[in-house]
């Protein structure tokens, strides 16, 4: 769960003139550099999983079952003799997919609702934002559970569930940010100049909420990855033999006595990934809005 109060402050991302380029500002912060580095490693792992992983993630008897870390099997093997390192590497691909798809769903629907509500005003605004408030009060976990209950357990459904559950938060943030834009002189000037709805919405409002939404989405990735892993851990997500980290962690607890690494590495992998997106998100926010440094 991202903390709502903080992310909403990072709204205004304009007036950049006279400062160092954005990317430099980002990596100059130690947290930004570290976050970016870990994320880069994860992305490389995910893209080149076929080249990096020494074994197929589902190949049984790649080594002897339940052996500890060794030169042949960097992270040991599981009860079928599958190579844990390969499973973790392929797991990063799944994790990225889950995060991107879930956040993609939240982001696209949420931004649309937020923009339209802020722009349309009146009844539509009330209707959209009140509904969002209502759905928001259900909490993400409940929404995700309800969706999986209806759709049935599977990795795809878990992604959709987590994505849908995130919509209200993105809608609210986008709405707040867009409202701020509408008050600015340039926007009023555009209206006076007779700009059409489409132009106002997509050429003026949208680009100006993008910085905020990028921050939200980066932090949201960590949130989505954590939520989907929790669903898989409970058995409501990935099905065997998918090397999904949450599911691997869940399967590993049977062997806690004899092979603690089966539970340790998937947990570490999730924690590290979530951490990377969290600090990257924080750093992004600071780079976009140095004023927020004081507050967070």
């Amino acid at each position, binding site marked *: 769960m991202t903390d709502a109060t903080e992310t909403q402050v990072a709204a205004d991302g304009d007036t950049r003139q006279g400062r160092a380029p954005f990317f430099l500002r980002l990596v100059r912060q130690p947290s930004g550099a570290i976050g970016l580095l870990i994320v880069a490693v994860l992305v490389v792992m995910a893209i080149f999983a076929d080249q990096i992983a020494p074994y197929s993630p589902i190949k049984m008897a790649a080594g002897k079952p339940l052996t500890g870390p060794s030169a042949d099997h960097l992270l040991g093997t599981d009860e079928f003799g599958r190579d844990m390192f390969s499973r973790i590497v392929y797991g990063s691909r799944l994790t990225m997919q889950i995060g991107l798809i879930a956040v993609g769903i939240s982001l696209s629907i949420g931004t649309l609702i937020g923009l339209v509500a802020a722009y349309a005003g009146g009844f539509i605004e009330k209707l959209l934002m009140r509904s969002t408030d209502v759905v928001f009060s259900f909490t993400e976990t*409940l929404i995700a559970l309800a969706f999986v209950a209806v759709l049935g357990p599977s990795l795809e459904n878990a992604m959709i569930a987590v994505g849908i559950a995130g919509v209200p938060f993105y809608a609210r943030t986008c709405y707040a940010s867009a409202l701020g834009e509408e008050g600015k002189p340039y926007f009023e000037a555009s209206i006076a100049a007779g700009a059409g709805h489409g132009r106002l919405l997509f050429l003026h409002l949208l680009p100006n909420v993008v910085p905020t939404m990028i921050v939200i989405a980066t932090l949201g990735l960590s949130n989505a990855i954590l939520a989907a892993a929790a669903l898989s851990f409970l058995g409501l997500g990935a099905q065997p033999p998918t090397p999904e980290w949450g599911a691997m962690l869940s399967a590993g607890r049977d062997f806690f006595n004899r092979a603690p690494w089966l539970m340790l590495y998937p947990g570490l992998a999730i924690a590290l990934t979530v951490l990377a997106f969290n600090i990257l998100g*924080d750093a992004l926010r600071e780079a976009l809005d140095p004023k927020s440094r004081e507050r967070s």
Partner: protein
Amino acid sequence: MLRFLGQRAAMGLLTIFVTTIAVTLLIHLVPGDPVEIMYAQSQGTTPEQLEAMRSKLGLDQPIPVQYVQYIGRLLEGDLGVTIRGQQPVAQLLMQRLPNTLALAALAMLIATLIGVPLGFLAAYKRGTVLDGLLMVTAIAGISIPHFWLGLLLLFWLAVDLGLLPVAGSGPLNIVLPALTLGLSNAAIVARMTRSAMIDVMSQDFIRTAHAKGLSKGKVLRRHVLRAGLVPVVTVMGLQFTFMMGGAIVVENIFAWNGIGRLALEAIFQRDYPVIQGFILVFATTVVVVMLALDAVYALLDPRIRRS
């Protein structure tokens, strides 16, 4: 103040109203015939029996009629019976709701006791190494999956060291799940408290107090803490919903007998009456608790109290 609370109450009622509609529709969104799923355990069911059950549940009626019937039963406290074993759903949920509330409350207490002082300290020492250290710890804390933390605590404290009971519902059994949930949320509380306190400290009346020459300690006690209570209550409100959500997962790790465990079992067994009841009870609980916190908030915040 009454107007503020009235608005909040209306919002809460609206939420519950929407929930009842969602819950009625839920069973129609399920792929396949819910009545056939109900009878999957029975042998030799005749089509007549299926029809009878369909009309008993009102599933042969138009959806609006079903909704009215559902509300009617609801007002009598009837949430239907489980598919597996035909147990009354309302009773099952009410038996377990106190367990979930106790878990969420204790976890919130732990998170507050750890998070608020640390967040306050970080705000007070803002910009120092200590602040940096605390915030790095906090962000690491946020990133640790609570189900992983829970398992590690379970295996370490209960299975290996035998310090705490592993499962069940004795008084000591709440310690591990509450600790897991509390610890994993303490970091969020610390971060939120810090930013709230920084806001408060930068407000004019605090600066004035300093300028008047009041000692640092006096300013803290008289003004900062008092004003800081408002955001802390806000934080607690937000925390409570997280806690309720987190409880669903944590209950299942530690076999804590709350509504979250009941719900997960029901999802696996496709026991729709239980799932429906769970959603309704969960949403209502969140609404009621948030409303209570709003009332506290209104009492504390002079601006709302006066309005």
